[in-house]
């Protein structure tokens, strides 16, 4: 679906009040950094009529009030900001952390390891080694509160989503598709394959900081066994620890 004639970034409209500054049609490090930096820039501008902003894997989303700020005016302001610099060479956010999150791969806790490994052309043991060795970065939060998209995994993990939704994966489920992990903050249906299970609670409404992971943080999903994971369930962080990245 790559269209080589398109030049990124592209500004698109969606819905009656949404604009997207899109830095690519596939996940890439430069596009992800551009999305994070562009969102920070829009927030710094503080334009009247902008209701909220958010960054996704490769885009910055802007919701505005079209009843008071016409589409063409808003789009022109965005175009000027887009042209102001090369967003693809933006630096990562500061204050990043390196997390280690204990994970049970496979077993009845994560029943799709075998089929995901097969799709990636690996044995189950090779898949566990590949996934637990990978140090991935939080590229965006989304889907559910505090829930990260993480990447990028080795090329073998460029496997598609399932054609049918899995009815429900539990909170803390680690799922894989298209060279990315998603770590579930809630129990929800998904089209991704459930390869690991953690005990982390990504969204803690009662806590001072309800969201655990932030875009830019790095994560390794270290392998553990079911008994150890069970012991970690009393800890809202599910045994996860972090150190600052210097």
């Amino acid at each position, binding site marked *: 679906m790559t269209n080589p004639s398109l030049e990124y970034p592209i500004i698109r*409209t*969606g819905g009656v009040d949404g604009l997207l500054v899109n830095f690519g049609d596939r996940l890439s490090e430069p596009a992800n950094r551009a999305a994070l930096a562009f969102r920070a820039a829009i927030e710094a501008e503080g334009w009247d009529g902008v209701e909220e902003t958010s960054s996704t894997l490769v885009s910055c989303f802007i919701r505005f009030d079209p009843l008071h700020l016409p*589409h063409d005016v808003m789009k022109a302001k965005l175009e000027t900001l887009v042209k102001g610099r090369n967003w693809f060479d933006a630096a990562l956010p500061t204050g990043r952390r390196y997390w280690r999150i204990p994970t049970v791969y496979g077993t009845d806790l994560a029943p799709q390891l075998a089929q995901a490994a097969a799709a990636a052309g690996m044995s189950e043991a090779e898949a566990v080694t590949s996934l637990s060795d990978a140090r991935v970065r939080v590229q965006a939060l*989304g*889907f559910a509160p505090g829930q990260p998209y993480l990447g990028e995994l080795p090329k073998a993990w460029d496997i598609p*989503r399932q054609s049918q939704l899995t009815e429900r994966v539990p909170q803390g489920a680690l799922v894989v598709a298209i060279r990315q992990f998603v770590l579930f903050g809630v129990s929800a249906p998904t*089209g991704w394959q459930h390869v690991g299970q953690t005990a982390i609670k990504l969204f803690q409404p009662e806590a001072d900081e309800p969201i655990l992971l932030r875009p830019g943080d790095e994560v390794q999903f270290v392998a553990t066994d079911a008994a150890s994971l069970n012991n970690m369930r009393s800890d809202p962080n599910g045994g996860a620890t972090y150190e600052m990245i210097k």
Partner: protein
Amino acid sequence: MSAQLKILRAGPSMTLQDMGRPRHLALGLSRGGAMDKLALAEGAALLGQLADTLTLEMAALGGEFEASEDVRIALTGAPMRVSIDAEAVVWNASHWLPAGARLSIGAATAGCYGYLHVGGGFAADPFLGAASAHLSAGIGALLQAGETLAIGTDTGREINRVIEPEDRFHGGAIRLTPSFQTHLFGKAELDRLQAEPLHRAARANRMGVAMTPQGGGYYIEGGRNVVSEIVLPGDIQITGDGMPFVLMVECQTTGGYPRIGTVLPCDLPRVAQAPAGAELRFRFVDLEEAVELERAEAKRRAELGKSCRPLIRDPRYMRDLLSYNLIGGVVAGNEELEEVT
């Protein structure tokens, strides 16, 4: 002490709702709030208060309630069978609920989501700026029998007013704007979406409403490998098997299944209230027209108070109705009810 409403019997899916929590997309939290936000505006108009007032949302079935003090109530959204101390009262109207009287709300007779508003609104602790339940995010919970809901201070006085609701309880025409992925779909599929009626499937909740297309699933090349992108309420998501879902108030904030279009916010109540099997006909409008439609709807909702009129009650007639009910157990049709339903 402020008034309270005790829940004596609870339908299976009752929550407290308001206009939701916008501006938390960056955390991964969708805005939530009432499924039918027009119903909030109608209730607010009847009671003379703000639309963003905490209200009780009831999916398909109501419950039984008792107030600790005299309170004003209003009933909007999907019409449901309702009585106060076994005396039938009118939906889409405001009433006096005396202390200790039994408010009984039954099944919806059309549509899906009914709303019970109280003067002053329900009072609950806010989280991230709102007190409404967002079940898919783990905020708040379904209401249960035995719970007592606090009611805020009511500064209004008007009761016995009735509003003519927009008839949105049977499906119908739904207008769309392009979504962030509409360009990925071919012309044939976009034409088909606007030519064939879709039927609301059985699967529906506050996250999304499944649709059954007559001509089978919608096709998109490479649709299972699209990079995850922002999701907006009203987006029509095409899952891997081609089935369309209209994403609703508790939807995910990002998703990788492509969206073929986005329902206009002013038409979302019609999707929310479409009962299973109802026919929906989708049509794209251009962005300028969409903005003008939203502008007109915002103005109409702000002026709903003007369209409320007095609910005529005849004491002799009410007694007759009461005896009817006690004898037959069935409320007969009558002028007042026919006038507004």
